[in-house]
């Protein structure tokens, strides 16, 4: 049994970043306040990404005011499956993934059904700002439902797994795959019970995973090992990550990418305050990597150089002897 000071000392030696450290040393100094709206409003992020030619899930429509609610049935009638999400939602709250229809009902990814009235109520809640940061009024986005690449099929329980990459000053520093579980209700959010699997930055191969606060080797629902899955087109993902710096101007950000079966990697959203559980998924602290980027980033001019730097410096170390 280690005492608290002992743990703190070891964590510091391992370069583990805490919330206070992340806020005071990275997000506050490197993320300008006026850049936040670009990522806090997913409608803006999407426009930005599309104008820069970055692949994002296709936007079917935006409901901005309650009067537009009348257009909602016509809008969703055109699509067999789709996703409804708040433009300013945080941590995946308020997202409804419709995978198809059963009669007049919408089939939702977590296995439940919504009728038209419930769907309208949900959208109207989004507009009222229930899911938005600070409770301001919000917009509802209706967009393409990603058909996920079967690469993660064996280690996913419903929902859409996504790849989170932390990008610091344009250099991808750490990445993980977030795998939905039965507990997370098909959502790819670690605090809701999703599994986070570390990724070797050099090869795009998955490592062990974190579930809650413990390290696991297998997916809790499917029982398959989570390590050793190679993410297809890993270089494209790294490049998407590196480019997101120029897109938003945020020095420290998290970028969420989904792998679509047909369309390849798509940027789902950007996050100006990415969480810290990624360190546990990779069993490594962020700080040491961030300090390397701080030291060398002035020499890294092009996107290709930054990607190469990440692949070289942040390759997974051989697993420590237990």
């Amino acid at each position, binding site marked *: 049994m280690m005492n608290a000071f002992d743990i703190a000392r070891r964590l*510091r030696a391992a370069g583990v970043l805490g919330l206070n450290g992340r806020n*005071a040393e990275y997000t506050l100094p490197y993320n300008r306040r006026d850049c936040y709206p670009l990522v806090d409003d997913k409608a803006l992020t999407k426009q930005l990404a599309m104008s820069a030619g970055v692949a994002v899930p296709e936007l079917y429509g935006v409901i901005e005011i309650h009067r537009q609610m009348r257009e909602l049935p016509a809008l969703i009638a055109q699509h067999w499956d789709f996703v409804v999400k708040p433009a300013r939602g945080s941590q995946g709250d308020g997202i409804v993934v419709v995978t198809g229809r059963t009669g007049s009902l919408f089939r939702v990814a977590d296995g439940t059904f919504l009728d038209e009235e419930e769907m309208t109520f949900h959208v109207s809640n989004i507009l009222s700002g*229930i899911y938005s940061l600070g409770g301001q009024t919000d917009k509802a986005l209706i967009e393409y439902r990603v058909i996920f690449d079967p690469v993660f099929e064996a280690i996913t329980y419903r929902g859409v797994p996504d790849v989170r990459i932390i990008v610091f000053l344009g250099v991808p520093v750490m990445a993980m795959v977030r795998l939905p579980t039965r507990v997370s209700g098909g959502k790819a959010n670690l605090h809701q019970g999703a599994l986070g699997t570390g990724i070797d930055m050099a090869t795009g191969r998955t490592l062990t995973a974190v579930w809650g606060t413990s390290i696991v080797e297998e997916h809790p629902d499917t029982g398959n090992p989570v390590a050793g899955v190679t993410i297809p087109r890993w270089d494209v993902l790294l490049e998407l990550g590196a480019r997101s710096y120029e897109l938003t101007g945020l020095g420290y950000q998290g970028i969420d990418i989904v792998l679509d079966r047909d369309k390849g990697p798509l940027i789902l959203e950007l996050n100006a305050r990415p969480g810290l559980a990624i*360190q546990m998924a990779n069993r490594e602290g962020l700080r040491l990597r961030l300090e390397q980027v701080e030291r060398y980033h002035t020499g890294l001019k092009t996107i290709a150089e930054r990607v190469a730097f990440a692949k070289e410096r942040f390759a997974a170390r051989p697993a420590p002897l237990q």
Partner: protein
Amino acid sequence: MKRAHLYILAGLLTALALAFFFYKVIVFGFPLKPETRTDIWRVEVQLQFEADGGPVKASLFLPQRTGALMVLDQSFVSAGYGLTTEPQPGVGTRAIYSVREAKGLQSLYYRAVVQSARLPEDPSRDPRPSVETPALADPQLAAARTVVGAVQRQSADAATFAALLVKRLKEARSGDEADFLLGYQPSNSRLVNVAVQLLQLAGIPARAVNGIALAPERRNAQFHRWIEYHAGGRWRTLHVRNVVEQPGQVFLPWWRGTSPVAEVSGGKNLRHTIGTSRSYEYAMRAAVAQQRELEKRFVEFSLFGLPLQAQSLFRTILVIPVGILLLVALRNIVGVKTFGTFMPVLIALSFRATGVLWGVVFLSIVVGLGLAVRFYLEQLKLLLVPRLAAIVIVVILLLATLTVISHHLGFDRGLSIGLFPIVILTMTIERMTLVWEERGAAEAFQQAAGSIFVGALCYLLMNVRVVEHLAFVFPELLLIVLAATLLLGRYTGYRLTELRRFKVLAR
């Protein structure tokens, strides 16, 4: 660079605070500890009325030296009014405020500093007063004689007579003589008046006395009336109310007889409010003993120069920063999860009115019932704003109902719960349901428990008497609290809860 700047700023604030603090302690001799036994009291009366526009004359009785208390100092604040005092033998002293012309709302203030007299009044100077025969109509006189006769047969002397008489009057049954004298549902004052008449009828000199109970912090003190009767060569006090609230309670006699404390001619809607406080005022020594000009002025321009009601408000306000500092530490160093940022401090403030145990119970009941209603409303699929409005209304009704119930169960503490910020309660319920739906009941209860836990800790800290005393007497110490808060703003170490979270990485 930023760090150096911050350390210098924090150092300067601390140095400034300590300089003021030590100057006040060493040079002025301000007390470091709240005194355990204070015998200096400040009493403030505010007189308000609406003047008609013509000449106005207002009179106010003044407290007087009697028995164990003496009026050390008194001051009158009455802009534009002429002031005279007028002794009225056997009743008291009246202050007469007068002005040729006044219109609109008028506020007159009277402040007195009262101290326990070191020497009690010399009883030998008090000759046995003459007994006035009470003016009673025939039927009353007959009833009074019956009562007096009955009590006299059971009593041995004036003291037992007085005590038994009061007991007899309090136990009046409907239809008997005592009840006839007292009338329907007699007030304490009425009881005292009748008792005084009956004492006089029995040949014992007696009078009604009006005064207030001195309490440490009281914004709205009430006048009480009690009996003084003459026996064994001196005046003795007899309280009619069987609730003598605390042992050692000090009563300040104000005036005698049955006239109202204040009267006004040329105005209407006369109101008075009385505040009392235990005085920490150092000016006492300055004014009475040393008369140093600088100190007097300093005290006048500090919080002590404010009216009493503002002073007791600031006693509460000035401890808030201490609670906030604790909240910051608990959130950023320990990592407790709470609803909102400052809600726990608001909860702590409401606990001040209710006490922590009762406050937690009340909060849990209101939030619990509110949650039930919120989940019910969920089925109706209401839009956000009307739903919030509905919850506000439900919360208000819940508060009213619970207050009535707790009053009838004899918990008068519930009455002060109305100070609970209703909108905060509503937002708590709404936030809690959202967290509940999105993150599950466990997370919702964790945050709720965190909020109440932090609130209770803040309350306990803010309620320490030394903390309250230091914050009020030495508000400059809050600069140190500010400096500490600024330093916490650059604390980049781990939160305690993160140690558990990241424990697997501590290889």
